[in-house]
């Protein structure tokens, strides 16, 4: 138990150490630069280099902007001479698409830039569908590190968590993408994933079976983040591993690197029926994705950063799912970790998942 405690302490300490350093280099103290990687001064330095690169990107983008502006003037001149009621919306949309295509990596953006891209996305959606979204770019709060625990004794395999997750996170309905898998295991065989069935269609709880759920474990040492060639995926300061869908190039190296089957790819254009779209969105969370990019569980970042539980936790009828702040000594998750015999999957890989299993 004390060893476990040490682990949070090491997390906590590294978190604390990092904050003052980051405020120096990135201004905001939470996002940008080093937040995703290790907490050491050596790492913080090259991040500045990236920031400088981003400075260069801005110049290029300004150049593009001016180029677009002049193009639009030209195009405008033509269109005004041809049509009467000019398509202002179409023009604006073209401008937005252009800026979106050449924007930088979200991880390295300043707060203003983050807000700007979110505004553009909301506006673009409005032009396309006449619908308003509520998209957030809310950053991590200080002193928060999210963790999750799963009670194997309680889960009955109802899969309410799975459907709640799909609805909440606007996942592609055509390919039936699901972040959570519930593995049905036989009593007497122990936790044996090889023999388990993660695709059952019968009444639950089935006699002589128990259920274990898996999803992204938001590792503290995530292999998926290391391998990404463009830093399109990273660990936020509150421990959530996120993907910038607009920066991902779709190489799927992260998918090969994940030992927990935590990542999903959009093999074709994801479709969500208009009336089913969850409009309460976050840039790093459940906003609508596009074809050819990775996505994954974000602990419902649009909910958890607003102080709510993820959709799976809220939907679970048996109370098998516990979510909370690992740095808050009075949280339920801390109580579980201190009072139950918890374990994690594939601990030998050194990934340090922030997802624990326990039994009553």
């Amino acid at each position: 138990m004390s060893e476990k405690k040490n682990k949070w302490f090491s997390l906590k300490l590294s978190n604390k150490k990092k904050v003052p350093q980051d405020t120096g280099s990135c201004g905001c103290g939470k996002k940008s630069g080093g937040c995703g990687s290790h907490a050491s001064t050596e790492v913080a330095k090259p991040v500045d280099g990236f920031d400088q690169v981003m400075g260069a990107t801005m110049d290029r983008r300004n150049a593009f902007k001016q180029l677009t502006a002049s193009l639009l003037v030209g195009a405008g001149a033509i269109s005004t001479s041809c049509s009467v009621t000019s398509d202002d919306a179409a023009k604006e949309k073209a401008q937005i698409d252009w800026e979106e295509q050449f924007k930088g990596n979200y991880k390295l953006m300043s707060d203003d830039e983050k807000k700007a891209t979110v505004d553009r996305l909301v506006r673009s959606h409005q032009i396309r569908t006449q619908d308003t979204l509520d998209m957030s770019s809310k950053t991590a709060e200080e002193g928060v590190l999210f963790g999750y625990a799963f009670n194997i004794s309680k889960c009955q395999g109802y899969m309410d968590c799975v459907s709640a997750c799909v609805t909440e996170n606007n996942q592609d309905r055509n390919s039936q993408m699901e972040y959570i898998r519930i593995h049905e295991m036989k009593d007497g065989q122990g936790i044996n994933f090889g023999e388990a069935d993660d695709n059952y269609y019968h009444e639950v709880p089935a006699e002589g079976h128990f259920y274990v759920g898996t999803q992204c474990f938001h590792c503290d040492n995530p292999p998926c983040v290391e391998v990404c060639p463009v830093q399109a995926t990273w660990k936020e300061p509150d421990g959530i591993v996120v993907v910038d869908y607009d920066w991902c190039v779709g190489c799927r190296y992260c998918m090969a690197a994940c030992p927990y089957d935590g990542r999903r790819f959009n093999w074709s254009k994801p479709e969500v029926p208009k009336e089913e779209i969850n409009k309460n969105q976050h840039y790093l969370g459940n906003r609508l994705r596009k074809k050819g990019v990775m996505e994954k569980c974000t602990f419902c970042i649009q909910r958890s950063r607003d102080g709510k539980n993820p959709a799976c936790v809220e939907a679970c009828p048996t109370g098998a799912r516990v979510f909370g702040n690992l740095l808050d000594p009075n949280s339920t998750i801390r109580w579980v970790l201190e009072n139950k015999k918890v374990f994690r999957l594939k601990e030998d890989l050194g990934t340090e998942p922030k997802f624990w299993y326990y039994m009553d």
Partner: protein
Amino acid sequence: MGSLKVFKSLVIDSLDIITHGTKKYHLWMAFLTAVMLAGMYCYSIQVEEGLSVTGMTNRVSWGLYISNFTFLVGVAAAAVMLVMPTYVLHDVDFKRAVLIGEGLAVAALLMCLAFVVADMGGPNVLWHMIPGIGVFNFPNSMLTWDVLVLNGYLFINITIPFYILFRHYQNKEALAKVYVPGAILSVFWAVGIHLVTAFLYQGLQARPYWNNALLGPRFLASAFAAGPALIILVLAMIRSHTDFKIEDKTIKKIALVVTVAAQINLIMLVSELFKEFYAPTHHSESAYYLFFGLHGKNALMPWIWTAIPLNILATVVLTFHKLRNNLTILYICCFLLFVAIWIEKGFGLIVPGFIPGPYGKIAEYLPTGIEIGVTLGIWAMGAFVFTILARTAVEIETGKLRYKKK
């Protein structure tokens, strides 16, 4: 200014050469163009619909494209087996073959890059990966290392032959002090590209089938067998279709390289099989799936059981001097070896890495027609590029193509 004029003349002359030829040549090029066009059509469907038109899924997320990419990195690296004896060890027997080898490396590298791009979900945002403009996750991601070494190797393999041919075109000797440093660099670089590509897989703790210290060395051994085997076949083709003289001695020396590499590769295969099957652990499941199938799923069995006997047969036959020195037998063996290693290092390496999945799920992979179309198109592109390069090089080296001062 002067050299610019010569360069212009070289471009015009080589264009003239590659657009003229025998009927057979035109048929060959027309055939390759048709395959390329078909491949581009398939790719356009893939761009439109997404990667869902391929056989890849969330369970097996890399397939035919990455398999071919891995194999072709080896073919590219194999040029070193000609470069080293020629430029570093000054073995005159290799001198005529080396330019062909380097041309093959260029074609293989272009195919590698094409396969990687074909595998991308967002080819339109690939600029995110360009250092300086995008964000390059160097040195953490092995993929960024691979981007660097592959493009660097491509640069070396374009510039050295170009310099030599450019000098010969003007009836001048190529200066050794100019190109030998580059050649020496390319020797290390060739080993580098293949080791880095192996590390791409080897570094993933999530996939025990790849996370294996022998993977890198095995990559090198199989590459130095399959690559020169292809070079022998190409040289045989060039020899019979052009005036370019390549002596038997050259081919036999390259055959020796192929043989030794194939023997080492076989030893490593035995070592790998021993480890997987003598005391099988949970981590041997991928190998079990590959060789024997798991839970009735055995899509890869026919492939691997074609590859292994071919590999053993070719290696054993090549080992006997008498058989190896018979050119017909040599060509057949080279072909068999090439096919065997293509299977083993392509399909046989990439797909079982994902099977069984992280939680033991066995979902099989079969490429779709569109995937195969794109793959054939890229191979045709490689053959097309190589034919153009080789024809120009051969014409210059045989002295038919020379700069005419006016």
